């Protein structure tokens, strides 16, 4: 099938005595929003870490759009068109919001390495315009010249989302993108993510908030203790007794 964007096959990952991922197989179709849910410690973030090259799997492979990602370095994976929002926001503190977004845009425009020390940032009106437009999309425009250190956790996450979106990735990996957000902001983010979907971006979203999951997901994979225990459409998952059990047997939520 040619419209599989991400193909994870037989991935295993062990941390000491803990089997964090066991025999994970996942196929993600182009343009779809794929949710991965599961109790705390299920291995969801680990799965994304394997995809973006932060962790190397013990066995198995990850193929994105015909490229084998396993063994590639993080920047190479990003340059292929994979962007990620982290569970704990990873942004550039000490810089302003607009600069954060500009840096992300520059990576897309100029590539992994680009050395033009005599080029002025100031003259790049187009870049700034694009960055501001993106900030407006996530509702942070009024804070554009603030330092990111002062942002709330939810705002940091929205900023990170903006940094990913401005790169127009083919695959967007979202690790709990709405954690720490108010209901209002969560709904805004859902709207934003829905809009991107219309543009055909493929997404993998990890979420504890079922409202978010059921509003966005086309397909849901349920992880528990490193293994996939269920897969299906939102309706199928909602009624699945195994899922209920995993959540009740697991932690809160």
């Amino acid at each position: 099938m040619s419209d599989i964007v991400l193909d994870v096959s037989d991935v295993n990952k062990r941390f000491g005595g803990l089997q964090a991922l066991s025999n994970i197989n996942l196929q993600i179709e182009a343009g779809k929003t794929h949710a991965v849910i599961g109790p705390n410690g299920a291995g969801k973030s680990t799965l994304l870490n394997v995809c973006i090259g932060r962790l190397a799997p013990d066995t198995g492979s990850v193929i994105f759009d015909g490229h084998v990602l396993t063994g590639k370095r993080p920047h190479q994976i990003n340059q292929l068109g994979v962007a990620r929002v982290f569970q704990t926001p990873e942004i550039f503190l000490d810089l302003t919001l607009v600069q954060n977004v500009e840096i992300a845009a520059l990576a897309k425009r100029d590539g992994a390495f680009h050395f033009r020390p005599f080029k002025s940032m100031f003259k790049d009106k187009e870049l700034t315009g694009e960055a501001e437009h993106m900030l407006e999309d996530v509702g942070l425009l009024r804070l554009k010249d603030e330092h990111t250190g002062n942002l709330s956790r939810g705002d940091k996450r929205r900023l990170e989302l903006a940094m990913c979106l401005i790169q127009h990735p083919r695959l967007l990996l979202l690790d709990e993108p709405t954690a720490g957000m108010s209901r209002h902001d969560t709904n805004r983010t859902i709207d934003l993510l829905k809009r991107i979907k219309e543009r055909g971006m493929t997404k993998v979203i990890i979420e504890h908030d079922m409202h978010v999951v059921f509003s966005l997901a086309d397909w849901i994979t349920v992880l528990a203790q490193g293994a996939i225990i269920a897969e299906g459409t939102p309706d199928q998952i909602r009624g699945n007794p195994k899922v209920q059990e995993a959540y009740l047997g697991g932690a809160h939520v």
Partner: protein
Amino acid sequence: MASITEFNPSTPKKDLLIMAVFTAVVLTAPIWLAPIGASYPDLLQRFAIFGIFAIGFNILFGLTGYLSFGHAAFLGIGSYSAVWMFKLFSMNALLAMAFGIFVAALFALVIGFICLRRSGIYFAILTLAFAQMAYNMAYSVLTPITNGETALTLDVADPRIIDRAILGDAKEALPSPSLFGLELTGFTSFYFCAVMLILAFWVSLKIFRSPFGLKLLAMKSNQNRMQYTGYNTKPYLLVAFVISGMYAGLAGSLMAVTDPLAGAERMQWTASGEVVLMTILGGAGTLFGPLFGAAIIKYFENIFSALNKTQLTEVFGFLPDGMAEALASVSLLFVGEGWHLTLGIMFMLVVIFLPGGLMEGIYRLTARVKRKRESGGAVSGGAVQPSE
């Protein structure tokens, strides 16, 4: 602590003004530094040379956060290369500088490539190890090149191939570095260094305003994010390392231009530490901070270290005899040989109270003044954000 190492948005017009003022200030230094007794060429050019050294160091440390403890090695390499250029080819200062910068860049490329495999304290230790290696080798195996403890000096019998081909073999006396016939001594030599300082500052300003500079700052803030955002961080760091090595090479060759002699003591770890002090004292990551730091340290070194007991007793002469004597002996601890004590105390005070260096102090002051002025007028809505 939100640092003031922010990437200041600036307009080209504002930058032009900065350059104009900077140029004027540097070129008139002999005049306005006269009242504090710092307006003799020897000290002035030291300000300029160490200013260049610190500006370059700041491009690495201030922008990327990588603390090198071995930059004096490039200073020494620049000096040796320049003196060799004088000896073998020509007394032309520009050639010597070009060669000094080039050789320093080569070394920086190799040393940087190796040291940048690690970050933080391990990076610092690696650079220190390299510099110490260079220092010790200059005294041992490399003596044919460095002339060991006697230091590398010019000789009447040096080949100076280019000079002899152009000017003939006439010269009997030891020549001095020149710029197309203009001998670089005294104030001429200072002005030569001053022009180099202005150029060096201009390049640094450009880097600070470029996407490249912004990326370096972002790397200092979160290197992981940089990688997941699609940047290959290693080459960026290496380029910053090489640029700062080239600045050190330039500073080193200017030392040779102002005094055509190169000794290994220039590469000692204390010299590497000194440029770290300069940068932190003035404000790492700021445009002007490292320059201030360099000037202050060099000023103290020259003025304070030269003070002696009789001068101090004179200073306190207005006091009753016994008291003057006592005060003089106490302050003697802080001057002459003891000037390092003054430097140390100053450094500690800055690091504790102004972690962003003297520039943070200036920044805070201007912010306070601005706030005062604003509160006098309209109600201040978007208050000027303080630096902490």
